[in-house]
């Protein structure tokens, strides 16, 4: 019997013959925390008296959740992180650089890596074939100190993709459909492994979107094999040497298999207050939206902004619907400027904000009032997440978000394309 991607990577990094259900200690290739989890990570590291980082060049801090800081308490947290980086020699990505998961994707993650981050959406790097997963501050503090951690090797669910997306439909619709069908705890403690000929029709950006939301089904990781699309991505990022072929064995064993035909999908929306509470966008026509938010580690990449700009170019947002656009990183911002997407969006009366997480978690820059509804391209619509616990969050694709910004109500993007 062969191995799944999860079993292969954890065997390699633990130096053992690892199978699902085993508990292993694996070397960690990259460990990081961000500005809302980093301060507690540092305090736990100090409480343990650990003193030195195991691998300063494999340890990173990101200032992205409140970038720049909206208040003095978080400003103090930022100072703590900068001082820790200065003292230990770890990598630090200060405000303005972008969302941790986007920078990890652009610059740090490699196929076959084990990556641990004090942020649940660390799973994003699974799109590049990295066993990347979120943990809390104590676990991450110990990885800072030891350079390794323990894992239960997960059982894998194989998602077999076929066909090609139709116009107006994309990776976000696929992952919302998947979570809707297996449930918000449908993959708890497990790996989602994506495969099939449909992968050839899906770019890196869409793969990041899907891997990013694996955790919304409870999964430990969302893993993709590598192929020519992955290789091209590394080449464009100027790190061709980081590419390596990586795929599951053909005779690996899976807990279950799910087939998805990309051509059968339609624009999907998750309704308040759970990600698995999905409906077709067209079924929600008439739902008034006061704020559209395009950005986040889920859908703040150049391809996402290109889709939104394409729909909004030469038009104006609905007068009663705010439109907030946040590129996921400085690199994305620069490319969006170069491609004139930012111009099209500002002319459509969008607000462009600096790279970061802010509005997604109700921290700043797009906080919802009581009774307001938001259509967001983010990954979570939990009660209270974006501000008032009496606000309503709907999740959709960049195309659905842009279409909704035009009409002021939830709109199937195929109506306006």
């Amino acid at each position, binding site marked *: 019997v062969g191995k799944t991607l999860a079993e292969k990577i954890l065997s390699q990094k633990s130096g053992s013959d690892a199978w699902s259900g085993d508990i292993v200690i694996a070397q960690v290739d990259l460990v990081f925390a961000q500005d809302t*989890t980093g301060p*507690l990570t540092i305090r*736990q590291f100090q409480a343990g008296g*650990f003193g030195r980082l195991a691998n300063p060049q494999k340890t990173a801090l990101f200032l992205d959740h409140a970038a720049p800081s909206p208040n003095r308490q978080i400003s103090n*947290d930022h100072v703590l992180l900068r001082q820790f980086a200065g003292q230990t020699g770890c990598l630090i990505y200060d405000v303005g650089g972008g969302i941790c998961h986007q920078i990890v994707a652009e610059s740090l993650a490699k196929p076959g890596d084990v990556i641990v981050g004090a942020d649940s959406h660390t799973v994003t790097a699974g799109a590049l074939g990295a066993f990347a997963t979120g*943990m809390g*501050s104590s676990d991450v503090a110990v990885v800072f*100190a030891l350079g390794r951690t323990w894992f239960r090797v997960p059982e894998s669910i194989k998602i077999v993709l076929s066909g090609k997306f139709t116009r107006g439909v994309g990776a976000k619709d696929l992952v919302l459909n998947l979570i809707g069908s297996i449930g918000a705890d449908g993959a708890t403690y497990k790996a989602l492994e994506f495969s099939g000929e449909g992968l050839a029709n899906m770019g890196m950006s869409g793969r990041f979107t899907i891997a990013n939301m694996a955790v919304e089904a409870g999964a430990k990781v969302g893993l993709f094999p590598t192929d020519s699309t992955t290789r091209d991505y590394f080449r464009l990022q100027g790190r061709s040497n980081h590419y390596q072929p990586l795929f599951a064995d053909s005779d690996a064993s899976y807990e279950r298999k799910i087939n998805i035909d990309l051509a059968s999908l339609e624009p999907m929306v998750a309704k308040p207050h759970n990600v698995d509470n999905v409906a077709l966008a067209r079924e929600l026509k008439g739902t008034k939206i006061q704020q559209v938010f395009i950005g986040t580690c889920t859908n703040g990449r150049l391809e996402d902004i290109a889709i939104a700009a394409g729909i909004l170019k030469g038009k104006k947002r609905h007068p009663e619907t705010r439109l907030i656009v946040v590129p996921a990183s400085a690199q994305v911002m620069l490319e969006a400027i170069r491609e004139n997407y930012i111009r099209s969006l500002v002319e459509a009366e969008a607000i462009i904000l600096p790279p970061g997480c802010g509005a997604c978690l109700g921290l700043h820059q797009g906080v919802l009032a009581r009774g307001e509804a938001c259509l967001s391209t983010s990954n979570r619509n939990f009660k209270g997440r974006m501000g008032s616990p009496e606000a309503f969050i709907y999740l959709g694709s960049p195309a659905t978000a842009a279409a909704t910004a035009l009409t002021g109500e939830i709109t199937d993007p195929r109506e306006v394309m």
Partner: protein
Amino acid sequence: LLKGKVFKFGDNISTDHIIPGRLAHLRSNLPELAKHVLEDADPTFASMVKAGDFIVAGNNFGLGSSREHAPLVIKMAGVSAILAKSVARIFFRNAINLGLPALICDTDGIDDGDELEVDLGQGTVYDITKARRLTFGKLPKVMLDILDEGGLVTYIQKYGDFKL
């Protein structure tokens, strides 16, 4: 042996219910943050909970963010254990890492206000109010050891490494 009263919650209690992002500025001020524990799920919880009490929930407790502050403020509120039909993965690891038992059992028959007795060593829950005994799923050895040492940081201080 843990003993206390039940605060019952439903399915899918997220880390945003426990401590939402709008309180991120309080994460370096834990006593202040703890006053808001579970505010968006039950605004009276923080003022009613007493040392030793239990949180009993349905499926997927603690889904969402990796913020360890969520189990931390629950522990600071005096909760002695969380019992749920299932617990989201990151929250589960975080709770154990803080020495807060998260136990998987069928919670359907346990109601708000019930008095419980939990025997961690035996793996049993006794509902005193209902005169009913349940068992909970066993933790892997590494997690039992971490729990025994009162959390991950003290466990690593003691052993210097993970021991499987």
